[in-house]
């Protein structure tokens, strides 16, 4: 029978058991039954050699008279629990002790299942991350030796269980926090292989491991890989996607000529629970997006900032692991220094403790991790703080026990005290969530780890102390084990005594008079009505002493720092920035009256005209319009235009460049950043839509994100639905990595750039054909034919050839512009747009003939060699030659003055005002294939409108109102009010931080994260305000 049981116990600790099928569950039930029936027989296995005779003990404990939390929602009072050989075998109010059981009286004490941390690296070597260098040599191919994956950041073949060694020093600290089990992960790579589930006990590692392969681990940090690609979040996402596809291809088992150990492991790991490390709400959503694409639901390690976008997190329905590392307050004593603290950081300080409560309210499953805490011993304190901020104790306990157990499908084993569960529990002085609760013991796999003496004597009370001839009242306050002793010298003076209670013994010493600092030292023992013993006076003479018990202590509130209240005095805004919106705005009907309307249509500029906006569209244009239910806006003396469209921006992005020579698999849509203040700033300049482009670090960059500046919306909701696909190409100095003298990456010359394109398109064409051929096969033929490998890069390149994706090419010098048009013509497609195109004026006739548009700067030049011959007449000359021409920004600052940049073509080249205006509205709309819905004021088009105080091309014009889809996202008339709100919230938070500091909370020096402004060639860091290009 015992053998049989061993087999089942083995089954328990393998991932096999956790297949979510009914059969497996049945087996599990069987195991439990066996556990119950034969638990008593389960003595320690004699598998290890011993340098002694065997010393196997009974290991049967009956805990009596306790309040027991069987799980987070089931509490039984005055109950008992039976633990046999490391498993819980019974609980109830009328248990009797089996023979050989040790009885433990827990009167007044509580038992909880011990806590589980799913985000730990306990017992594993520390993962190194690759060192950073601006100007290092690129590493193109994998450095790892052996038959592993093509990208070193994918380490799916790593198994934490093979590297785990218990670490008593760390385990002890975690046990003190109430943890019994952790899932440990080696934090290296985008794919980190499998994590192991281990207990925090002391003993043979073999016995501590509950699951060798607990979960498959992915992340958004690259780790130790020295391979240059990928460097960005969008690159990380592209690599993960490609790995999924490669695994699918590899798993078809028709590829016998190719072996990849990493992919084999990856494929095996798919049956495990899937975890993702993505510590911010934006990254949580990004991880979830990948999961959705591949039918995987990840459990995501979040950032603790999820409350900032609770709706989206809820919609994603992602189970989370959240930290409780709430930020410290800032030291804002000096009002000028306090400028170095951002409002968003201050608000996060105020609201972070409420994150868990908000998640619970929204019904999102989550568990806690102690990871990220500067001082891990703050863990329980911070969980309690979450409770003060609205989290129920039940939900808190659930997050510490049931949820993490469930997320690993281990709820029958850990996270509760049900029969058959591993005996992992803690014994506490009372409600664990009360401020001064003490964890006495942490039992792991049926073994006790004593943290505090649970039988410590509570000596509290009022006594009369007699030392030699002197008598003093003695006050003993506090809890068992932590009593505080005070002598009352006279009516106004109390003296603290140092006292140590050790079982029956007591040692106490005190100084009566601070001036002479003479110490009296007493040693003694407890008696029936107090204490007595021997002592030595400061002069060395021996005396007898006693303290007779008079009455019980009257509880007084402990002195000490009052924690800041759980009140939240500022509001969550969308985005979580100054000028954010408290509620997401909705569309309204507007009637703009009597404005000068720049239609960009045949009508041209028409005066004294009304425009009606309904349901986000332009509904009517005319004179003397009336509309019921529409809010009227007086446009008298003002100019109404369609919104400015920026063909080339890098704002609203979390990253700009990845570095593969052809980075076509990278998608900027993945990294849209809704929390960029520049969105609002650009609305203030009348900009309503933009193409968010990849940078120019490579001949082929990533896929563009076309967005509207819907301030306050989540990243996904900023994307322009149904827009055509675009992609960034680049030529010239950046592509050649001219500024890095150590660069070895192909291409190093303009000659090589052409060859990169030729190679990419040639391969893409072959790829496309291979798939076409495969798809044309019958199902039977397909079954015996190897499926081509899905390659996200080639697929994107093929889209370009097939006119399903369109190029916006960063370009400066005429030779290369000419070249790219020839390459495109060889593959029978057109270059959609040359962007920057500063020497466009030299080949404008060729561009016009080819059908390429030109999107340029108005007057930028000479910041690098290839722009030496850039001239401010470029736009005028291209227009003259028949090229559809736009003025773009590539710059967060200039973007909010694109109206002025357009006006420069009037000065340089004598362009008409209407033509100039189209360069920042209709023409970019054409380039982005959006001119059927944007770019002009025409009935049926999107109500992306700007009301200007003056001729929009004049330096004296201000955008007064900017509307996107009929929603006013910027209104200059409300600016002052909004600024006042910012100041008000700052003032409130500064007062609160001051109060926190005075209350003893730790504070940090002011600091703020600076905005980074991305330009085309930035790799790791963007530019900072005030820096030159």
């Amino acid at each position, binding site marked *: 029978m015992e053998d049989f049981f061993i087999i089942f116990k083995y089954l328990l600790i393998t991932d096999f058991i956790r297949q979510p099928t009914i059969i497996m569950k049945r087996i599990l039930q069987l195991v439990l039954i066996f556990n119950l029936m034969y638990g008593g027989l389960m003595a320690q296995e004699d598998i290890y050699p011993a340098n002694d005779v065997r010393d196997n003990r009974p290991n049967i404990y009956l805990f009596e008279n306790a309040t027991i939390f069987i799980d987070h929602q089931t509490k039984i009072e005055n109950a008992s629990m039976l633990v046999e050989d490391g498993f819980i075998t019974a609980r109830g109010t009328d248990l009797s002790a089996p023979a050989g059981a040790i009885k433990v009286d827990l009167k007044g004490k509580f038992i909880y299942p011990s806590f589980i941390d799913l985000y730990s690296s306990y017992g594993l070597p520390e993962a190194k991350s690759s060192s*950073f260098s601006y100007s290092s040599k690129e590493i193109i191919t994998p450095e790892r030796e052996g038959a592993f994956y093509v990208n070193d950041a994918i380490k799916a073949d790593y198994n934490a269980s093979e590297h785990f060694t218990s670490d008593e020093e760390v385990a002890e600290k975690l046990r003190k926090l109430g943890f019994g089990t952790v899932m440990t992960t080696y934090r290296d790579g985008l794919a980190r292989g499998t994590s192991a589930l281990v207990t925090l006990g002391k003993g043979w590692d073999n016995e501590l491991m509950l699951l060798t392969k607990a979960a498959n681990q992915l992340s958004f940090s690259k780790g130790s890989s020295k391979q240059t690609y990928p460097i960005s979040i969008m690159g990380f996402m592209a690599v993960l996607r490609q790995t999924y596809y490669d695994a699918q291809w590899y798993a078809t088992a028709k590829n016998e000529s190719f072996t990849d150990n990493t992919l084999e492991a990856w494929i095996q790991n798919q049956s495990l629970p899937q975890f993702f490390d993505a510590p911010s709400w934006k990254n949580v959503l990004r991880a979830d997006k990948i999961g959705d694409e591949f039918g995987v639901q990840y459990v995501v390690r979040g950032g603790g900032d999820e409350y900032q976008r609770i709706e989206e997190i809820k919609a994603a329905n992602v189970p989370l692991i959240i930290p409780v590392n709430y930020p410290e307050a800032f030291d804002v004593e000096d009002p*000028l*220094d306090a*400028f*170095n603290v*951002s409002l968003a950081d201050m608000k996060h300080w105020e609201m972070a403790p409420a994150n868990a409560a908000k998640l619970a309210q929204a019904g999102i499953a989550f568990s806690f991790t102690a990871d990220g805490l500067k001082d891990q011993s703050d863990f329980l304190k911070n969980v309690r703080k979450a409770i003060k901020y609205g989290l129920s104790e039940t939900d808190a306990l659930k997050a510490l026990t049931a949820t993490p157990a469930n997320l690993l499908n281990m709820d029958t084993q850990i996270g509760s005290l049900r029969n058959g569960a591993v005996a992992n529990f803690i014994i506490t002085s009372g409600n664990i969530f009360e401020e001064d609760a003490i964890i006495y013991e942490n039992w792991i796999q049926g073994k006790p780890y004593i943290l505090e003496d649970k039988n410590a004597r509570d000596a509290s009370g009022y006594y009369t102390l007699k030392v030699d001839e002197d008598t003093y009242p003695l006050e003993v306050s506090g809890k068992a084990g932590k009593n505080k002793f005070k002598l009352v010298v006279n009516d106004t003076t109390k003296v603290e005594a140092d006292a140590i209670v050790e079982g029956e013994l007591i040692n106490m010493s005190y100084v009566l008079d601070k001036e002479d600092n003479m110490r009296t030292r007493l040693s003694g023992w407890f008696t029936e009505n107090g204490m007595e013993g021997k002592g030595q006076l400061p002069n060395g003479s021996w005396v007898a002493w006693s303290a007779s018990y008079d009455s019980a202590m009257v509880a007084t509130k402990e002195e000490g720092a009052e924690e800041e209240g759980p009140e939240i005095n500022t509001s969550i805004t969308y985005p979580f920035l*100054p*000028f954010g919106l408290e509620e997401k705005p909705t569309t309204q009907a507007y009637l703009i009256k009597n404005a000068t309307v720049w239609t960009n249509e045949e009508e041209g500029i028409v005066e004294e005209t009304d425009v009606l906006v309904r349901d986000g569209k332009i509904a009517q244009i005319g004179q003397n319009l009336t509309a019921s239910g529409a809010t009227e806006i007086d446009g008298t003396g003002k100019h109404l235009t369609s919104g400015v469209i920026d063909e080339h921006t890098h704002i609203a992005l979390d990253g700009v460049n990845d570095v593969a020579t052809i980075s076509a698999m990278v998608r900027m849509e993945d990294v849209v950043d809704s929390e960029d*203040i520049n969105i*609002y700033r650009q609305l*203030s300049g009348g900009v309503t839509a933009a193409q968010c482009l990849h940078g120019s670090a490579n001949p082929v960059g990533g896929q563009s994100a076309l967005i509207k500046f819907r301030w306050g919306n989540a990243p996904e909701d900023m994307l322009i639905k149904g827009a055509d696909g675009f992609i960034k190409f680049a030529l010239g*100095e950046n592509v050649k990595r001219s500024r890095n003298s150590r660069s070895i990456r192909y291409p190093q010359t303009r000659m090589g750039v052409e060859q990169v394109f030729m190679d990419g398109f040639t391969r893409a064409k072959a790829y496309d054909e291979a798939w076409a051929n495969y798809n044309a096969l019958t199902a039977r033929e397909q079954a015996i034919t190897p499926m081509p490998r899905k390659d996200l890069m080639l697929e994107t390149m093929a889209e370009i050839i097939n006119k399903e994706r369109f190029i916006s090419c960063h370009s400066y010098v005429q030779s290369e512009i000419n070249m790219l048009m020839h390459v495109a013509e060889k593959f029978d497609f057109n270059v959609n747009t040359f962007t920057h195109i500063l020497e466009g*004026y030299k080949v*404008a*006739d060729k561009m016009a003939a080819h059908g390429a548009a030109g999107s340029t700067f108005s*007057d*930028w*030049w*000479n*910041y*690098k*060699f290839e722009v*030496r*011959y850039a*001239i401010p*007449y470029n736009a005028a*000359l291209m227009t*003259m*030659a028949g090229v559809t021409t736009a003025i773009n920004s590539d710059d967060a*600052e*200039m973007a909010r*003055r694109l109206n*002025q940049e357009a*006006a420069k073509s*009037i*000065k*340089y*080249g004598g362009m008409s*005002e209407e033509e100039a205006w189209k360069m920042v509205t209709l023409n970019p709309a054409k380039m982005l294939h959006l001119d059927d819905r944007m770019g002009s004021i025409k009935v049926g088009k999107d109500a992306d409108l700007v009301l200007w105080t003056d001729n929009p091309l*004049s*330096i*004296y*014009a201000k955008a007064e109102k900017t509307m996107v889809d009929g929603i006013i996202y910027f209104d200059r008339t409300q*600016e002052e009010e909004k600024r006042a709100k910012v100041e008000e919230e*700052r003032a409130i938070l500064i007062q609160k931080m001051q109060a926190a500091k005075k209350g003893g909370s730790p504070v940090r*020096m*002011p*600091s*703020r*994260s*600076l*905005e*980074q*402004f991305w330009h085309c060639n930035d790799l*790791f860091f963007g530019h*900072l*305000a*005030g820096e*030159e*290009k």
Partner: protein
Amino acid sequence: MLKHILKIILALFTLPLLAQVPAPAPPQESPIALVGGTAHIGNGEVIENAVIGFEEGKLTIVASASSVNDEQLSGYEQIDVSGKHLYPGFILPNTNLGLVEINAVRATVDDEETGGLNPNVRSIIAYNTDSEAIPTMRFNGILYAQITPEGDRIPGTSSIVGLDAWNWEDAVIKTDDAIHLNWPRRYAREYDYATFSVNRVKSKTYAEDVQAIEMLMEDAKAYIEKGVGNNLKLEAMKGLFDGSTAMHVHADAAQEIVESVKVLKAYGIQKIVLVEAEEAIHVADFLSEHEIPVVISNVHRLPDKPEDAIDLPYRMPSMLMQEGVEVALMYRGVTNARNLPFYAGTAATYGLSKEEALQCITLNAAKILGVDDMIGSLEVGKHASILVSSGDALDMKTNIMEHVFYEGRKINLEGMQQRLYKKYKEKYESQQN
């Protein structure tokens, strides 16, 4: 014969010369009067239907046409500029014009010497009158510039030049006008390579850095008192104490601004100008009280912080002037500095009158740079450096220079960019015919 050969050789050289900046105009030969335009004097005044006369490079008449009689105009070549706007030539402080040709090409960069304390390093001798960037400035009305090195604590000494010259000696308006001091930052940038974020955190070396400045001042003072020595650095600082050289302090944070002024005043520095000064508005009353003028960093920039009002940089000139601070405008990079008049235009959109805005790039700048006896306004006796624009020169739409006089000389506005424009315009025009 020899003459002919020389001519041929010269003709051969003309081709590459085409890529050069235009030659400076010949000296003014006879008196000229610009009649009938709207004259923006630069000191806040406007004269409609004005007569602006000048002779031998100096302004001789600045008056309303109604107050000028024919006799006064006798001998003057009269040019009808009715409907046009006249301005004094704009002044660009704190620029690396002529020191840097192409930022990304190291061989062309001459604005940053190594070493932390370089009061003796002089920009003027590196100023390249043949920089292709110069014509782009003149094209928009910028006729004077303060050529300023940049770099570490004390990058060097600037000089003020006119933008129509054969060589730097020719160009000088005022040599070694100011020593520039980059005040240390109380809050410095810290790059976090784990998250690729940049944080502004309290500097650990601030106090030490300020002490180093104090020691330098102390030593310079002692050195000058001693009267003899051969320390080039300290020697170069002499003018700071007698007022012949200004100290231009580059500081951004409010407390840095206050501390820099207090420290420098304590050492008897006579003329202090604050440059860039992001947070000047928070200590505007202090600046006003101590009569410290400010050269404001790029008006067309983004607010420093997300909390700032979105138009704060645009309003800064007006806010400071309201507090009684003297303000001039600048733009550091050569690419965008030519837009100086439009920075003034923006300042006018956000709080200043157009004439006040104009002052920020003319008379105020001249006063701050200590050259208002020569330039900065259309006043009799000053340089006849006059812009004739077809419209409002502070608005890009109408900033179109029809004539520009530099010290009475009508200068050629065509630079490389205009020549390239013509070249390709002709190409496309011929294609269309």
